[in-house]
């Protein structure tokens, strides 16, 4: 006898494809926010499936902090070529040069918060009315309240207390000129689901996710990679460790973990036994209890 139900991963996939098709149907000029991280790679893969045999009808938009892992940029460029989609790059360096934002000062200065301005500028410049992101509700408590279709006012801001109710799968993407939406097709996925899906679909991901030898420094309870942007503090020294990254962001703030997992199977196994949340190694989230909520209100990813 045939079975008439989906397993959870197929159901999540089907839901994400539905969301992506709704974005295409309800907006004029949507883009996929592409960071080179696994979540945006999965979203891009889902978009490919949602519109097959057509090409992905969205451009990829990358907000480049200038502090990149070279591997991420190479991966991005290869993928764009393979998919035949347009790439839009918003440059934080350019925003700094133009005086739109100023570099943070001090010991733990990062360009993380500066990305918001660059992102909103790029959205405005390219007349984007919906930016599709790989945000997941399990990542963080402010994200747990996100809608699939999330409204941003004409300053690009999120008002978490005044969100549109979202019932059944009836999404309302109506907006006024100058406002935009963020859409989150993998809202209901967890980190584990993402890895299981990458495994099932054999999706390529940057080599940084796999265990590899790397020069690192111990800082804020995680291994921060050595790079041209890293300034060694007193008492800090460079070690050579076998590590991998659970999330990919700005190279200056993305911490790695010691690991031997060098295949997707091993990573999935490792993640299932993991006792720390994945953003536990992101110093941008450690600044205060509400740092994600505060950044999201201003227009962050």
């Amino acid at each position, binding site marked *: 006898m045939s*079975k008439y139900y989906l397993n959870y*991963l197929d159901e999540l996939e089907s839901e994400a494809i539905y969301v992506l098709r709704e974005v295409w149907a309800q907006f004029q000029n949507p883009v996929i926010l592409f960071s080179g991280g696994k979540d945006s790679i999965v979203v891009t893969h889902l978009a490919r*499936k949602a519109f097959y045999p057509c090409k992905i009808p969205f451009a990829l938009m990358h907000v480049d902090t200038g502090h990149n892992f070279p591997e991420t940029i190479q991966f991005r460029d290869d993928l764009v070529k393979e998919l035949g989609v347009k790439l839009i790059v918003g440059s934080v360096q350019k925003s700094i040069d133009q005086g739109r934002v100023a570099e943070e000062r001090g010991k733990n200065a990062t360009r993380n918060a500066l990305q918001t301005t660059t992102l909103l500028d790029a959205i405005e410049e390219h007349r984007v009315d919906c930016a599709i992101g790989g945000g997941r509700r399990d990542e963080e408590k402010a994200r747990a309240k996100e809608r699939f279709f999330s409204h941003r006012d004409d300053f690009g801001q999120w008002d978490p207390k005044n969100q549109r109710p979202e019932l059944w799968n009836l999404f309302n993407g109506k907006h006024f000129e100058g406002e935009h939406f963020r859409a989150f097709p993998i809202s209901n996925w967890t980190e584990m689901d993402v890895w299981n899906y990458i495994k099932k679909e054999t999706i390529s991901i940057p080599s940084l996710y796999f265990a590899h030898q790397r020069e690192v420094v111990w800082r804020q309870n995680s291994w921060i990679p050595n790079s041209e942007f890293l300034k060694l503090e007193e008492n800090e020294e460079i070690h050579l460790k076998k590590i991998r990254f659970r999330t990919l962001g700005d190279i200056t703030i993305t911490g790695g973990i010691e690991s031997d997992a060098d295949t997707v199977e091993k990573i999935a196994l490792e993640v299932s036994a993991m006792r720390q949340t994945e953003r536990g190694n992101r110093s941008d989230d450690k600044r205060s209890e509400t740092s994600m909520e505060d950044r999201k209100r201003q227009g962050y990813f």
Partner: protein
Amino acid sequence: MLDNNQLLRFTTAGSVDDGKSTLIGRLLYDSKSIFEDQLEAVENTSKRKGHEGVDLALFTDGLRDEREQGITIDVAYRYFTTPKRKFIIADTPGHIQYTRNMVTGASTANAAIILVDARHGVIEQTKRHSFIASLLQIPHVIVCINKMDLVDYSEEAFIKVIEKYEEFSSKMLVKDVRFIPISALNGDNVVNRSTNMDWYQGAPLLHTLETLHISSDYNKVDARFPVQTILRPQSDDSNRDYRGYAGRVASGIFRPGDEVTIMPSGFNSRIKSIDTFEGSVEQAFAPMSVSIVLEDDIDISRGDMIVRPNNKPEALQDIEVMLCWLHNKPARPRAKYSIRHTTNEQTAMIQEVIYKIDIDSLERNHEDKELGMNDICKVKIRTTKPLMIDSYRENRATGSIILIDNTTNETVAAGMIV
């Protein structure tokens, strides 16, 4: 046989006083879904607040305002997985002024957990939550009688709640109701079987959630396929003639070779193939996202519905709806709204409010007909063009609507077609 590896969505309505946050915290904690850094953060906060041990309720902490006020304002979604299933919790506030959030959380749920404080028994709030669960046609309701530790784990207290509950719920339309005596605080019958209540022979909550039969929750009888968008490659030569209707099966089962009718045009055709990225499939059922190719070249656009000729939804312009008003601005009499039904959008007008439900007594009020925030009313709606509808009771996907205010673009109401 177990339905392994399925996704179960459930909603928990209640306030802090019912122990809702503690229950969710307990489920997450005992099913080992809490990470060390989360545990550490909660331990620190518990200590700072002077609590002994870990305050489980803190695992569901939300936005800054909610933390400051100690309440849930909005729906929060939480996730955990056991070897048997993946779970999505829609954690909603239980106070009367948040009816709209309860309705939102209930709209996608397979199951509802309704919390009753064993000391207080069935109260107005219990009735309200049960009414919303039945209004939204949540297939399974689990009444958790909490704080059993505070009534000496007494079977009489448990039975009294069941009797009271069955008394008022007999008129409601919930097919599957279960009762479980628990103590969220101490963990009795949440994940692990309680040793304090030998008189209870049923399963603990988690086991119940893991084994609820949910495969039949989707309507598998009435074939409905709302068209989302049309896939037509432009440049790629090999696929240039492809024309697929992309969408998600709302209900029923479709197979290649099936005769179909396109609504509202009424044209007939046959399914040539049902396609996915991986290739063609032999059948598509809810909630699969697929692309349907037809034998004939017919003009079809977003909002149309592919159905079977011998089982069609009604095409109506005048519909009766149980409407829950979601916005702080009340409904304007005879004003026009956009109505969204599946992928179809039309203009609609609320012609008449038939009655309002008093959400506490559950009585019908035929006098007060203002539709304000959190009100639930039976109304008559007229649309500019026919909608292809089923009753919500028979089909959640094709029996639900939302109203959008075109002057603000906000979603102002949600409705269940009667």
